């Protein structure tokens, strides 16, 4: 049977410029920093409590933050050295404040004893999930949802399909692309572990067709491997936001995740390629999640793909890439469509940071909506962004809810297409927050 699955048909989304200038740059390890800052919460879910205090000596890979709650992921020291202090930063995926621990390096990078699986081939599902949780693995595409939660769906949800997300539809970002090219074996092996945990009938690998080299490379690896023969690669037309979970499920399987529901409601689990690699590293090498691939791009002198210890300040990444170009005035964590702007160069790389985009930003002025309908044409969730904006502007949040504001995935296609430059996503985020607040006070 053919490894490639062919798909046809048009779909919604915005045609955004790809700007993947680092697609051909191999991943370089960033020299270890002198200091890392480890936020206690880098995921969606409960915050971890620190396990070490000021002055304590820690080893690389040692767990330094943990929570009792189910939806959480522990954090680990990413350097060996001394806990030199702590402060508070914003957790990018949630926008909430979280405590941090700073580690000053002793320069030795001494690791804890790595507890790899003795016989990875015959691991029990329970053991896999336990190891993934202990390693602090989260969704590495940016949402940073704890992976062990996705690997153990409730009993009544039968998972028949697993989709590995290698779309990377955000412009500029090439981290997943390089991971597929340089760590293809690990990605497939990690995907195989995911399959063991969930026992689906079908395993798909969705990759946008602007990464033909990655498609061919994985195809070759699959045809040579002994375990991955039934993995199906699905080349997808490059159109933002293919990599959005619900869009990807719709495109590959033709299934609609119910409003307010999760992929597991339609029998699907989606995992990012970086996550699959992290799972491999944990099971086969015993490594917790202490480093990740970050694309540093845009208005820096030498854009690169870097292998970075989590907690490394952005300053180190940008300096290693030759510094910023003249006129650069904005730093974005993540891609340009969904990434979050940041002003602090001491802010650390977190588990969900796929990209550091430096750019020259020209502020735009919001104008009145002219009802052109472009936002409707591009919305992957088939919402009416202009209507949601009108309601949100006038404080009619109940009307927003009735118009399914919570179905919005905040991909930004609408605001990208808007000729009146209305920050639609911002209005929608405000409406969602207000609705949550109202529910809480009720």
């Amino acid at each position, binding site marked *: 049977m053919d490894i490639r699955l062919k798909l046809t048909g048009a779909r919604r989304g*915005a045609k*955004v*410029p790809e700007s993947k200038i680092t697609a051909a740059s191999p991943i370089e390890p960033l020299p270890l920093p002198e200091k890392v800052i480890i936020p206690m919460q880098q995921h969606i879910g409960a915050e971890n409590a620190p396990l070490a205090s000021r002055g304590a000596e820690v080893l690389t890979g040692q767990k330094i933050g943990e929570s009792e709650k189910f939806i959480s992921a522990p954090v680990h020291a990413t350097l060996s050295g001394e806990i030199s202090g702590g402060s508070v930063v914003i957790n990018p995926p949630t926008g909430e404040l979280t405590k941090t621990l700073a580690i000053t390096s002793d320069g030795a990078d001494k690791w804890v004893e790595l507890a790899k699986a003795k016989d990875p081939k015959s691991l029990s599902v329970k053991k896999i999930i336990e190891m993934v949780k202990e390693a602090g693995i989260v969704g590495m595409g940016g949402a940073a949802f704890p992976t062990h939660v996705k690997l153990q769906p409730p009993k009544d949800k039968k998972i028949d399909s697993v989709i590995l997300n290698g779309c990377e539809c955000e*412009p500029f970002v090439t981290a997943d692309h390089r991971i597929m090219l340089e760590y293809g074996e690990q990605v497939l092996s990690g995907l195989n572990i995911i399959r063991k945990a969930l026992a689906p009938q079908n395993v798909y690998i969705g990759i946008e067709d602007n990464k033909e080299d990655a498609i061919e490379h994985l195809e070759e690896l699959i045809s040579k491997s002994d375990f991955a023969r039934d993995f199906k690669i699905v080349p997808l037309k490059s159109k933002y936001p293919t990599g959005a979970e*619900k869009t990807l499920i*719709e495109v590959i399987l033709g*299934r*609609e*995740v*119910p*409003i*307010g529901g999760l992929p597991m*409601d*339609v029998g699907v689990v989606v995992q990012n390629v970086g996550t699959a690699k992290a799972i491999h590293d944990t099971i086969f090498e015993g490594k917790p999640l202490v480093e990740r691939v970050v694309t540093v791009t845009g208005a820096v002198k030498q854009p690169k793909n870097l292998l970075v210890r989590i907690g490394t300040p952005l300053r180190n990444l940008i300096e290693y890439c030759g510094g910023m170009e003249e006129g650069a*005035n*904005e*730093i*974005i964590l993540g891609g*340009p*469509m*969904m*990434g*979050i*702007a*940041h*002003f*602090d*160069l001491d802010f650390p790389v977190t588990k969900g940071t796929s990209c550091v*985009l430096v750019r020259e*930003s*020209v*502020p*735009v*002025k919001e*104008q*009145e909506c*002219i*009802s*052109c*309908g*472009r936002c*409707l044409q591009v*919305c*992957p969730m*088939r*919402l*009416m962004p202009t*209507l949601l904006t009108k309601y949100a502007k006038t404080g009619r949040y109940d009307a927003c809810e009735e118009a*399914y504001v919570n*179905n919005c995935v*905040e991909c*930004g*296609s609408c*605001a*990208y*297409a808007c*000729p*009146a*430059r209305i*920050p639609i996503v911002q209005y929608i985020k405000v409406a969602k927050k207000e609705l949550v607040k109202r529910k809480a006070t009720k």
Partner: protein
Amino acid sequence: MTEEEATPKEEAAAEEAPKEEAPAEAEAEAISEAEALRQRFLISAAPHLKSWYSTSKIMYLVVAALLFPTAAAVYFFGFYALTVCAVAIVSAVATEWAVKKIRGRPFIMDGSAVLTGLLLALVLPPTLPLWMVAIGSVFSIAIVKEAFGGLGFNIFNPALGGRAFLMACWLAETTTWVAPMGFSWDAVTTATPLGLSFVPPPDTGMLYGNLFLGNIGGSLGETSVLAILIGGGILLAVGIISWHIPVTYIGTVALLTFIWPGQDPLFHVMAGGVMLGAFFMATDYVTSPITIKGKIIFGIGCGLVTVIVRILGGMPEGVCFSILLMNALTPLIDRYTMTKPLGLKSLKKASSEG
């Protein structure tokens, strides 16, 4: 250029905060590096990319597409066409500026007033006194557009509103048509093809030819089907308008007059304002439905009303009123043609299964 004029709220906010905190002595060294960074970097909301299209670019592209019908108008009606267009555009922009000034709102040269002025000129008879043209422009902008809140809030198409107002005030002048005369001031009164006193040429081929090229009496921009098709084709090609309204509008007119005994569909489609209306008036973003389903309903409604007015009504032409009527129905159409979000189907299925 206008849409990117820098008045960044975020930047202003980011700059103000540290200034307030700074000590009164304000030594340069006292400002820490972090504060300097806060001043240096912008915080803007995602998405950080914007598409090429902006409101003013869209407006000027429509104006550019309208240059084809305008060129045809100038070719057939010479000085008259030039003066009417110039007066309409200048008075529209001047009115917009004045109203914004009175309302205390910023005047943005976004091209929408230029477009309204030009559109109004193209639906007026060539020999309409210029002071009437100016009054039409003032009414279009001040009453039909700005009184409702300006661009984006108007219910009716401003140019057609202005034309309807002029017809209500000066019926005789607004329905006096002249034969094409080129660059000459000698205007000879004639009837439009839709008028009762119109005498068709003995050869129908010649009639169709005149209608297609525009060598016939009528409003400035409505006469040449060829020029409108070129302009409309450009708008379709660059994605400014979608096919839904023009196709359903023209299709409905053709179909109805085809089944209506004694009517000639080809004649009805090419004569009068159907073409200009379908491509440039009914497709106005603000006053037409936003969903595809709504656009189709809108186009069919326009076609229906146009044919009924033409054949059964007291006026020879119904395009202007058909579009204004459907403009009024647009909010209602929008309400009943809302999109069904992704996941609604499976949500309903799940809840019906228990």
